[in-house]
């Protein structure tokens, strides 16, 4: 099966970056068609740089990206006809109302007015924006503005959607509505490349995931693949003061508020859980979360910023 997006030894160094500072380094990825593909990584890891190159907004320094079989360096026009993007930190024009944002975007892409109206109506309904259809963007909350942008690209006729942190600022209910709209777009055989800081979101939506750190690919695969690649695929949380030294031989132990966390193998998890229960401790156990995997691979939480070339470029742009 041909990939929808394929990056080949992709490298990016921003023009004013210090020598040796790269935003992406030799990044090769295969993104299958008709699925949601999650890019995860800390701020400045290189996710946005990858999306911007694939969406033909930014030129690569080395290597290239093929989108729907076409090279971003030479076939921009035909790629652009088939993609849509919500950039990170983008906002809709504040003097338009919600309906106009979606409708005019579709007309701008060349859809005829009747089709644009129909798609606008459907998208607003799907994302529960119909009550706000005539509300000016300037009067909406940040979350509703972001949802309006999601409606805009999801209503488009694009085969590939690039969503750079689409749910930032949304409340949990709104996030789930966006998730459902993304899943539906994926069922329509559209390819969706998603970056997010919410690892539960990445896991819930993505058929495959790529973990990027310092511009390099660190892990890639289905959520199950990622779990299989970590040393300890199970976690046991024991409430109270369970003797730490009894756990050390089973895996990695860390103190958390109100208890102890053990990362271990499945069989050991069952054994430790049984022993703890016999001694009257409360426990919870299960497969490790994506957050645990991230911590294990990167050594830092996803919430910690990097000191990277992409971050430098962002600061340069906003200075």
């Amino acid at each position, binding site marked *: 099966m041909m990939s929808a997006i394929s990056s080949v030894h992709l490298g990016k160094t921003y*023009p004013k970056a210090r020598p040796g500072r790269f935003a992406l380094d030799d990044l090769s990825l295969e993104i299958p068609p008709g699925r949601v593909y999650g890019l995860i990584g800390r701020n400045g890891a290189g996710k946005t740089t990858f999306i*911007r190159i694939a*969406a*033909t*907004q*930014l*030129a690569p320094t080395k290597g290239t990206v093929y989108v729907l079989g076409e090279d971003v360096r030479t076939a*921009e*026009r035909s790629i*652009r*006809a088939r*993609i*849509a*993007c*919500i*950039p*990170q*930190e*983008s*906002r*809709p*024009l504040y*003097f*338009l109302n919600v309906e*106009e944002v979606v409708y*005019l*975007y579709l*007309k*701008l*892409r*060349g859809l*005829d007015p009747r089709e644009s109206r129909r798609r606008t109506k459907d998208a607003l309904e799907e994302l529960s924006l119909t009550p706000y259809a005539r509300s*000016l963007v300037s009067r909406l909350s940040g979350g509703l503005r972001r949802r309006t942008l999601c409606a805009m690209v999801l209503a*488009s006729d*694009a085969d590939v959607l*690039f969503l750079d942190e689409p749910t930032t600022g949304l409340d949990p209910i709104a996030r789930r509505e966006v998730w459902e709209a993304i899943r539906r777009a994926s069922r329509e055989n559209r390819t969706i490349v998603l970056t997010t800081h919410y690892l539960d979101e990445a896991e819930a939506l993505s058929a495959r995931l790529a973990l990027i750190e310092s511009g390099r690919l660190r892990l890639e695969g289905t959520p199950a693949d990622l779990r299989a690649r970590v040393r300890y695929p199970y976690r046991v949380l024991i409430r109270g003061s369970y003797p730490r030294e009894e756990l050390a031989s089973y895996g990695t132990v860390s103190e958390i508020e109100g208890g102890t966390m053990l990362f271990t193998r499945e069989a050991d998890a069952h054994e430790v859980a049984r022993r703890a229960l016999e001694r009257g401790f409360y426990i919870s156990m299960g497969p490790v979360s994506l957050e645990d995997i991230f911590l294990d691979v990167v050594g830092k939480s996803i919430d910690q910023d990097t000191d990277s070339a992409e971050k430098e470029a962002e600061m*340069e*742009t*906003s*200075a």
Partner: protein
Amino acid sequence: MSERNRLRSIFTLVQLNGIIPIRTTPLYVVNLLASPLSFLFFIYIVSHGTYVAYGITGGMVLTMLTVGTGLQSDLTHYRHDLKLQDIVVASPVEAPIYVAGMALSELVYSLPALAVFVVLFFAWGFATVTSLIVVAGVMVLVWAFACALAFTLATYFKDVRETFIFSPLLSLLFSVLPPVYYPISALPAWAQVAARISPTTYAAGLVQGAVGLQPLSLSAAVVDWSVLVAFTVALFVIAGVKARWKEP
């Protein structure tokens, strides 16, 4: 994109950035009327009415230049603060379509000011077939080069604040220092040479000549048109080669 879809995109941009904002905030129009009309008022007071005719022809040129400075601010703001350029780049809309649509949308804001000047133009008895053709041609060229320059600069600015520096500078270079609001003969000899650097000197020369405010020989008219067209073409070429639609 088919030709029909390109036209649809251009009209959509006019609607999006021209018609709808005016409907939402009509004060935009008053703001854009203010600059050329205040110049006219100032000239009327200072010259005791003598140079009002120059104020009318100059106001028409300045209105077209104002379209460019407005476009520069809007494009920079949309690109940085709303990421609109990135959204449009990742779509079937090509850069010339985006610029054409946005440039036309800015023209919508200037229509009331233009209407005032057209009325004055007729009232002062300037309207002949020749003068109308010349004035229309000059205004189209001034609008075109101002917009090409605005687009190129907007793709380089790192913040909308930079437009606050460049817009008054461009206004000074294109509409105050060159003889847009007065005859070139009013300048000292050395300043007349310096004024020849600005394309608006040639635009004003053509308009002032067409309405009979200044003598304009056929050879001078040919030179003025040639320079104005060459400058416009040069700015389009620069926009095509240097403007950062896709970032390097």
